């Protein structure tokens, strides 16, 4: 994607004379162009995906056999923690922000994001955040080792000194996300082309709009949580220390008040992507547009009422357990509506199966499987058995990897022709898809069984009855990890050249982004399009 910009220069477009952009590294450092910033975000997130993936490989290598082989338990805990943090804050969230940057202005007929300088800033602080986080691994005592959920007092009294760096880096990530979210909201509210009413916006824009509000609501809560951890550890407060009148369980309430909406932050934009791709390749309008919008809003509201389903074993009063169980079950209803809508969109369509569609279909099936295990986890009495086992690890990887990540890959294949002006290599891409699909299930499906049989999560070594399952899982893990290098190659190849893409390479696709040439010129919609 970095070459996308260069490619534009050798083309002759109407907008060519506006392309006064710097060259070399300053172009990227000082850019305020939404497409450049989108590319930066996307590349950054892909690098983070590989870094976090490398850590997953360390985890899976250690768990390949019972016994301790490669790493000591303290380092193992650092790997799981940093893997989780990097994947959530470094891979998934920046990828969505990158897609938002590239696509939202083009989808609503705006020339750029509303706050372009802030846009530059919100990206460029991210590399520092992750450099700090990764650097802390090399400190004496190691990096964060308390899980991505950093429960107190493990993260306060009992953590190593790198905790201050962890707190600092999470603050930077949070600031970046909030700035990105403000930008999305201001852009959508003010910069829609004439005639683009709210109920005409593409669903990707809608879902991001709602996601941005979630971000603004909960990132400050995360900032509060890490700050309290900081002061408890270094400045003698006792928010989470019973000896000083605090309560360690309060930490979990605060964390999950952020954490549950956070998981929807990582999936709502996916819903938008899938709602764009499925109609395009079924050549039929999306079924139930309005109900999709309402369902997204309902999910967003409910997501503030279910946080304690992560805390059923902490010893809450029964009525609280019941309340959170009911709310959690309720959230399955709007989620179900979405899935039914996608299936109804496919019904009596005229389907073809290019790679974006393959990833989108895999998303629908595998995300639904993740939803099923989520429904099972909602049943409190049974959650006592599932909680903190590999069943949960299976559950959230189905929604995050085959959910969020698959939708991001679908989006990348779908819009790569628009970004680069070239078609990606369809044969390689199909290989990438099928290998990913098979390996990801070998990787994550057996984890359900390990969890049901009683294997706790976050352990570097396990009892012998889990040995076979873990071996299969690890093989799937290595295969999935390697397969993603193919994706890197496919994207690089597509940036470098290939069959030239039409302005609208997918005959069934709808939306303003397909009305501009491919690759999209550096500046688009300087005069707003008219929407009937």
């Amino acid at each position, binding site marked *: 994607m970095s070459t996308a910009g260069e490619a534009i220069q050798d083309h002759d477009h109407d907008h060519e004379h506006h392309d006064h952009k710097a060259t070399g590294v300053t172009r990227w450092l000082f850019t305020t162009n939404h497409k450049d910033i989108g590319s930066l975000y996307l590349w950054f997130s892909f690098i983070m995906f590989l870094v976090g993936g490398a850590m997953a490989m360390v985890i899976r290598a250690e768990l390949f056999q019972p016994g301790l082989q490669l790493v000591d338990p303290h380092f193992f805990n650092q790997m799981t923690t940093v893997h989780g943090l990097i994947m959530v804050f470094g891979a998934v969230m920046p990828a969505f922000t990158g897609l938002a940057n590239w696509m939202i202005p083009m989808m609503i007929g705006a020339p750029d994001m509303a706050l372009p300088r802030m846009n530059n800033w919100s990206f460029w602080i991210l590399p520092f955040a992750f450099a700090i986080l990764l650097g802390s691994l090399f400190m004496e005592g190691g990096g964060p080792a308390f899980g991505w959920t950093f429960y107190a007092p*493990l993260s306060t009294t009992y953590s190593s000194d790198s905790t201050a760096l962890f707190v600092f880096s999470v603050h930077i990530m949070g600031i970046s996300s909030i700035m990105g979210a403000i930008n999305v909201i201001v852009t959508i509210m003010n910069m829609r082309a004439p005639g683009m009413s709210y109920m005409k916006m593409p669903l990707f824009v809608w879902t991001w709009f709602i996601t941005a509000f979630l971000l603004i609501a909960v990132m400050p809560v995360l900032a509060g949580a890490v700050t309290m951890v900081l002061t408890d550890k270094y400045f003698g407060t006792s928010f989470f220390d019973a000896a000083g009148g605090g309560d360690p369980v309060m930490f979990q309430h605060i964390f999950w008040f952020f954490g549950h909406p956070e998981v929807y932050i990582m999936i709502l934009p996916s819903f938008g992507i899938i709602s764009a791709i499925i109609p395009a390749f079924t050549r039929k309008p999306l*079924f139930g547009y309005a109900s999709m919008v309402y369902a997204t809003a309902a999910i967003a509201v409910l997501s503030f009422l279910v946080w304690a389903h992560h805390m059923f074993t902490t010893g809450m009063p029964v009525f609280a357990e019941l309340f959170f169980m009911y709310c959690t079950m309720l959230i399955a209803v709007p989620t179900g509506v979405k899935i039914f809508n996608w299936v109804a969109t496919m019904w*009596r369509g005229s389907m073809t*199966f290019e790679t974006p569609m393959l990833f989108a279909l895999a998303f629908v099936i595998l995300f639904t499987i993740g939803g099923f295990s989520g429904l099972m986890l909602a*049943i409190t009495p049974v959650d006592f058995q599932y909680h903190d086992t590999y069943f949960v690890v299976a559950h959230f990887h189905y929604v995050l990897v085959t959910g969020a990540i698959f939708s991001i890959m679908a989006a990348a294949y779908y819009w790569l022709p628009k970004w680069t002006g070239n078609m990606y290599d369809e044969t390689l891409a199909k290989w990438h898809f099928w290998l990913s699909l098979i390996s990801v299930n070998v990787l994550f499906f057996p984890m359900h069984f390990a969890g049901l049989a009683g294997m706790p999560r976050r352990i570097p070594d396990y009892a012998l009855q889990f040995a*076979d399952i873990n071996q299969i899982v690890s093989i799937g893990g290595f295969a999935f990890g390697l397969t993603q290098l193919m994706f890197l190659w496919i994207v690089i190849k597509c940036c470098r050249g290939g069959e030239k893409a039409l302005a609208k390479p997918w005959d069934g696709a709808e939306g303003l982004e397909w009305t501009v040439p491919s690759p999209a010129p550096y500046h688009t919609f300087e005069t707003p399009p008219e929407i009937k």
Partner: protein
Amino acid sequence: MKTRLILALTALFSSSALAESQLNLTRGVTDISSRVYDLHMTIFYICCVIGVVVFGAMFWSMFVHRRSKGAKPATFHENVKVEIVWTVVPFLILIGMAIPATTTLIAMEDTSDADVTVQVTGSQWKWHYKYFDNEVEYFSLLATRQDQINNRLDKGENYLLEVDRPLVVPTGQKIRFLITSDDVIHSWWVPDFAVKKDANPGFINEAWTRIDEPGIYRGQCAELCGKDHGFMPVVVIAKEPAEYEEWIAAEEERQLKAKEEEQRLMSMEMSMDELMDLGESVYLGSCAACHQANGEGVPGVFPALKGSDMALNDIPAHIDVVVNGASGTAMQAFGNQLSLRELAAVITYERNAWGNDTGERVQAADVNEYMNQ
């Protein structure tokens, strides 16, 4: 090639080892655990049915409504009736599911009228059990040898799921657990009882069980509690009530004797060899998890004792930190975990092992004197 792959896969899946390993939740050995199992299977089957319907419709369209088969796209994009149906029907299914879940949950949380009460305290990385109705309490530590973990010895059948002193409880009686922690959060979990409850420092959680069958039940700590979270199993032995009474009486007697013996032995001097032998075994059992067997600790997390100023020069401070711990750190107070002789031995050991050759002996009487100051 393809067939070979399939053959290999089937071989893998039908291998006797895999057939033996459990793939589903246990039904357990209590009424509650069996109700939990039934709930689990019910919700699982509901998901299967919904899955068959949804994925069935999806695959049907994928095969029938594809362009290569000449399918022409329809244009419908709304249908209020259908949309109401697929909002209301799932809602009703969920209500059907919520009812048994609610009754089970209420039963699980009813800890009243217990016959036996045990306090369960987690600390890095062991469990402590204290019986309320008898003068019995003890620690329960992982019994798997370090050599097995480091792959120098073959792993035993109950690798990582075995402890030196299991919790012993009677069958057929309501046992109440009061669960808490001395340091970070742990979680006490025995799948066969469907009991998993967090141990929160400074707070007490309640849980209960009534076990139908005598037997040995194994579980693990379920909440990340630091480096050796994976190495603090739970083992519970359920005995017939009569046998249990016998056991607890004998145990009470034994603990009383041990205290008397301790008083008697206090005046006895131990030789350097005796102290070092006992000290080494105590050190490996209680201290090496943090300070490491070679005394070098984990830099930045657990201090080295090898060459430490305290271990070389300052006996009173050394006794103090081992007896009382260092508050606000992972260094626990061992004063009530180890006997006076063990304390003396482990302190002596730390002052003379790994080249800390001070030649000084610390006796039980010294520790006792310090504790009584």
